[in-house]
């Protein structure tokens, strides 16, 4: 077991380092990191024409004439110590800004995951138990629509109906619990639908296994069968899906945070992209990759915990 954990941990660290090289490479071979861009976006204004002196000053300040590997080395050396460089636009440490914004995203993502599980798991089980009834069909069709609904469009529908139409919730911003409702529902809808479908089919598969049939043949009550035998095994694949979904939730948070002006990491990322704030973009992308990798690690580990076969068995 320990060997398994250590191995997974090492792999995660390797992936994160490789991801940092990839991000650094992508972002620094770009028009976004020329001195003129930095000047226009962070100092003099878009429409102004930079002077030679200004360009020289910025080139030196951001080490833009050094070779890329040297820039990366310097960056990595600082990053290991928790210093991700300074934002061009905010003129503050990237790490500090991320620390400021990350909790809002965690809150939003966490509540959305909780909400989606709260909806999806009971519904998925019910649909499986009441297979091919009206309830099942209704559930599956709504799940289908929820999966296909683009989150930004759903967000606008919700705003039009609940904020503009009924004035229940604020349109945007971060003011109190009521402003959490619409973003959470938007994020949770798609994810909940996926989880629900997974829960239903996983449940169905488990219920057609021989030991369930045997239990049923023995005359056990249906509820007893479900709660005692079926659920435990049906949860396994769902855990994996939830882990995978978390990554998409990070991606989705960019959109939802943009629509609802939620002061989280996704909004920070998209703002930084438009402000050509390369150190900031890099910090955000890296944080998302790291979070995603860690969540996957957790999923792997919890999978191993839940399924004793994995503990000693093969590792894919």
């Amino acid at each position, binding site marked *: 077991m320990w060997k398994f954990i250590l191995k997974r941990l090492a792999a995660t660290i390797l992936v994160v380092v490789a991801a940092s090289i990839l991000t650094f490479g992508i972002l620094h071979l770009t*028009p976004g990191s*020329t001195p*003129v*861009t930095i*000047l*226009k*976006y962070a*100092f*003099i*204004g*878009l*429409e*102004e*024409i930079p*002077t030679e*002196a*200004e360009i020289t*000053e*910025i080139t030196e300040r951001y080490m833009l004439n050094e070779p890329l590997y040297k820039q990366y080395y310097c960056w990595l050396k600082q990053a290991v110590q928790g210093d991700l460089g300074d*934002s061009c*636009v*905010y*003129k*503050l440490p990237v790490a500090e*800004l991320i620390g*400021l*914004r990350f*909790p*809002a995203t965690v*809150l939003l993502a*966490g*509540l959305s995951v*909780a909400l989606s*599980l*709260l909806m999806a798991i009971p519904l998925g089980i019910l649909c499986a138990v009441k297979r091919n009834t009206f309830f099942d069909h209704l559930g599956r069709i709504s799940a289908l629509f929820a999966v296909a609904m683009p989150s930004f469009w759903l967000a606008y529908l919700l705003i039009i109906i609940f*904020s503009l139409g009924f004035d229940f919730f604020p*349109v*945007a*911003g*971060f*003011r*109190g*619990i009521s402003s*959490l409702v619409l973003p959470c529902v938007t994020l949770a809808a798609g994810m909940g639908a996926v989880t629900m479908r997974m829960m239903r089919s996983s449940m169905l598969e488990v219920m057609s296994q021989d030991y369930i049939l045997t239990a049923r043949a023995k005359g056990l009550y249906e509820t007893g069968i479900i*709660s005692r035998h079926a*659920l*435990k095994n049906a*949860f396994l694949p769902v855990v994996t899906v939830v882990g995978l979904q978390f990554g998409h939730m990070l991606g989705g948070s960019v959109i939802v945070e943009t629509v609802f*002006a939620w*002061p989280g990491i996704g909004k920070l990322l998209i*703002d930084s992209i*438009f402000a*050509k704030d390369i150190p900031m973009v890099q910090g955000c992308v890296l944080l998302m990759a790291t979070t995603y990798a860690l969540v996957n690690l957790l999923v792997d580990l919890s999978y191993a915990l*839940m399924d004793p076969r994995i503990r000693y068995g093969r590792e894919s």
Partner: protein
Amino acid sequence: MRRSLSMVLSILLVSLMLSTVGCGVKAVSSGNQSLVVGEIWKINNIDPAMNGTLTMEKALITESLVGTKPNFELEPCLAAEWKRIDSNTWQFTLREDVMFHDGTPLNAEAVKWSLMRAIAINPQIQSFTKISTVEAENERTVVIRTTNPNSDLPASLHYSNTSIIAKSSVDKDGKLIKPIGTGAFKLEQFDLSTGDMKMTRNTDYWGTVSKLESLEIRALPDPNTRALALEKGEIDFTCDPPYNELERLEKVEGLKVELNKTARTYIIEMNLNEAPFNDLRVRKAMSYAIDRESIVKNVLFGCGAPAIGPYMPGMAWTNENLKGYPYNPEKAKQLLTEAGWSDSDGDGIVDQNGQAMKITLMTYPQRPGLPPMAEAVQAQFKNLGIELKTEIMDSTAMSEIASKGKWDMKMSAFATAMIPSPSYHLNTLYYSKNNKVIGYHNSEVDRLIDECMVADDQQEKYDLSKQVQQILEDEEPVIPIAYYGVAVAMKSKVNNFVFNPTAHDYMLTNEVNIKE
């Protein structure tokens, strides 16, 4: 197993709920004399050297040495007077009665420190001011030397990023704690994650102490959100709600909407090195073909004004005698025919020597008026028989393409009084050495701009600038389209707000208050 899972879930849920409550509704100070402003940009920096517009014009925390009147003429502010000693040396005399918010007096040493700090942080300040040294001659007198003769030094010291802060604004490592200025309001609180700023009035202000007890600024970069926040009463004052909602907002009880203009002009630059733009008749034809009234009405929803020359009316150096190129499709067609462009093959596009006139217009999306304006011009040129393709790209990419010489037209919104000087904008855009990209060469224009820059007498400067504007109208090297508009929307109870066109977006003053 199941039990532990559900336990984990419920713990997660409860803790998340608790943390929500923790960051719940913030109480808004609801004294009568308080104003809440919905700011139009993200607030990511409150350093006056980087974001002086915010601290000087909106939050009223800092002030600069030189002020301006609404017609862009300079007037004393923190400096009571200034004079040029020789071509590279200036002497500024400070007001005597000014204190920083921390109680220390404004003196020459403080000004020196603040200016040198700003120059070190923002390279643009150096290129505006051309300052080489700042010396404190005595308590009240600051001597500033420049690297080159710069008759616009006072004007550039109006620029908000040079506004003066006390040394206690930074910690011992030079990191900004908070801006401590001399203005009518003191910063109490700033939340970087939301961009909310809270100010209280400075009762020791050297001018009239504001009636407003507190001023709050909330960053609401989304126009929809601003409009809604104003309607719901979360804010008292904002600008630029979605233009299409101006009409509706105006009718809402308790709100008023004002349309104003600022010193920024939507223009089309052309590649004068290449045909057909090297032909004056073609340029004039294009200018006549643009229906500016329709653009202002339909693209800008009335927020702005059709442009005649580079400067909007009402600025001290605007040449008010210019006629511009009012919409005249017949005249445009005629000029185009004179220039040898006509539709000889009947495909609806004019041609010359078998070459159809197909032009690409580049613009950038950061100013929301630009892309639809480009599409409007495209439709209007089509009537003239010119095929215009629009390309929306990043503004840096646009200037990069233009600097390589392979381009036709580009549309931007240029600030015309970044520094309130009659030569600054003309110098950057029309002086042959400074803007090689558009390829405009006129030795007379160059000479007049040179003279305008060195002249010491303000009136003489204005006259020289007006002469340049006349030549620019005759030669139309750039097509002005519209003056930039600002829509201000506020509660009816907001009192004494007078729009100041020198503002970057909008400017509050110590006079603004709430009707009792």
